[in-house]
């Protein structure tokens, strides 16, 4: 509903002409609302994604340990994580809300379940790709099974594991923008707000751009980590 002459934009501030006319990008609005809207949303977004990736990584790793050690359980774990990945996120919220309520938990369960497939698959593939003769040499040299895993198989799977982590991180940062369908958190919140009345361009572009920038920065940091942890790959 638009009131004649009134402001059409959400988070209405002092109302520069750019804002009143809903210009393509109003820098004064961004400056004014950085600390009360954008920055908190960014921090929430980082938190949403970090929790999901951390928990997802821990679960996927535990599953990969089991799936690598006992080949029989790998297919069922794979199928379950495949299945979780295919559920549309909004539908997953609908399924979860009756059990976990309008809560952070609901959002995190959804986000975590989307990381599992990518992380688990990369871990398993990475571990399986360790050359047989290298494992043979390790066992023949007198490594225990645990030492073989920790000192040989795991480090050699690291490039694949970190590649999985990069994909999972970027996609989680992206998917986390739908959190406001459940709780008012993250960069999805300003986007949602900008859409809810008229489409306020400045807010959409700024928040959307921040999601992209966050994903790129996170990916870049992980590339640096990958180089640091796997110096032999470029040798």
């Amino acid at each position, binding site marked *: 509903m638009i009131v004649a002459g009134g402001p059409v934009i959400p988070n209405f501030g002092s109302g520069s002409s750019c804002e009143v006319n809903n210009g393509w990008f109003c820098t004064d609005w961004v400056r004014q609302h950085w600390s009360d809207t954008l920055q908190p949303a960014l921090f929430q977004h980082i938190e949403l994604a970090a929790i999901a990736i951390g928990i997802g990584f821990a679960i996927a790793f535990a599953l990969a340990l089991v799936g690598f050690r006992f080949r029989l359980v790998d297919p069922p774990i794979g199928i379950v994580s495949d299945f979780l990945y295919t559920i549309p996120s909004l539908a997953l919220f609908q399924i979860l809300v009756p059990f976990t309520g309008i809560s952070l938990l609901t959002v995190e369960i959804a986000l975590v379940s989307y990381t599992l497939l990518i992380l688990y698959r990369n871990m398993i593939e990475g571990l399986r790709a360790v*050359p047989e*003769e*290298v*494992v*043979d*040499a*390790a*066992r*023949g*040299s*007198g*490594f*225990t099974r645990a*030492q073989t895993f920790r*000192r*040989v198989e795991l*480090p*050699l799977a*690291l490039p694949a594991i970190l590649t999985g982590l990069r994909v999972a991180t970027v996609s989680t940062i992206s998917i986390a923008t739908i959190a406001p369908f459940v709780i008012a958190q993250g960069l999805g919140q300003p986007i949602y707000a900008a859409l809810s009345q008229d489409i306020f361009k400045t807010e959409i572009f700024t928040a959307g751009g921040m999601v992209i920038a966050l994903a790129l920065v996170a990916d870049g940091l992980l590339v640096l980590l990958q180089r640091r942890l*796997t*110096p*032999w790959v470029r*040798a």
Partner: protein
Amino acid sequence: MPGQAAELVFDEATKRYEGREGAAVERLSLTVAAGEICVLVGPSGGGKTTALRLVNRLIELTSGDIRIDGTSVREQNLVQLRRGIGYVIQQVGLFPHMTIEANIGTVPRLYGRPRSWIHTRSEELLELVGLDQSYAKRYPAQLSGGERQRVGLARALAGNPPLMLMDEPFGAIDPIVRARLQDEFLRLQKEVRKTVVFVTHDIDEAIKIGDRIAILRTGGHLAQYDTPLAILEKPADDFVAAFVGADRALKALALHTLAELELGPPADGPKCPRTTTVRDALALLLQQHANVLAVTDESGTVVGSITRDALLK
């Protein structure tokens, strides 16, 4: 850490796989004296690699026993047993994520040796296998196949094991480098005097490397176990004769030197030292279109002669 060389005894060692007819290794009995190289040779399916892997229990015996210095491998703790046995394989199996120094330090690290000790040991071993110290900080991917196998050998020697198992160590290396590695391995063996079990499918390599050769036939039966010379000159049966090849008489010539022959009085002819093998002496005669060779001692003085007819006897 373990010490010098150990005696290795296969005592009716047998490996059968369930659901497979016949044994992979059938009642194999042989003794490898401490400090000797025993080459296991034979056609594929002869159980050579299986026999080798029974020793460090990468494959478990079905029956019979294997003893190292009198102690059964069955009675030893699995990882302790393996740490005391050097292990070299055809594909080398270096750890790609570790530097050459860390690869060489594998077993000492398992023994809890400090970093400085490992560093010094790695320097010694790089020198022993003929690699420059600058290799220490490189990764395996930066080395050629021959260099990698040298590192593989250094890694196997690092724990100073009394016994080495080598499974076709030079099999994937081109012929020229292989010949050089064989020579260097023999030189190195003179220095370190390990007991070595060496698997190959190449009879020429077996003759060159082995103090004794065990010829295994399909089904893991031992066809003959003897010195290279005895196998060439007195093959136990048709299988061994066929396996060592129709040119076995010629191969045997390479195992004798002129010093073992009765020489004639000094005579004129192409000179050749008495350490020359009969095979090379014959080659020299043919090349020079000569009928007699002047044989010299270490100082180059002619001490006798040998004729073409005497060589061929």
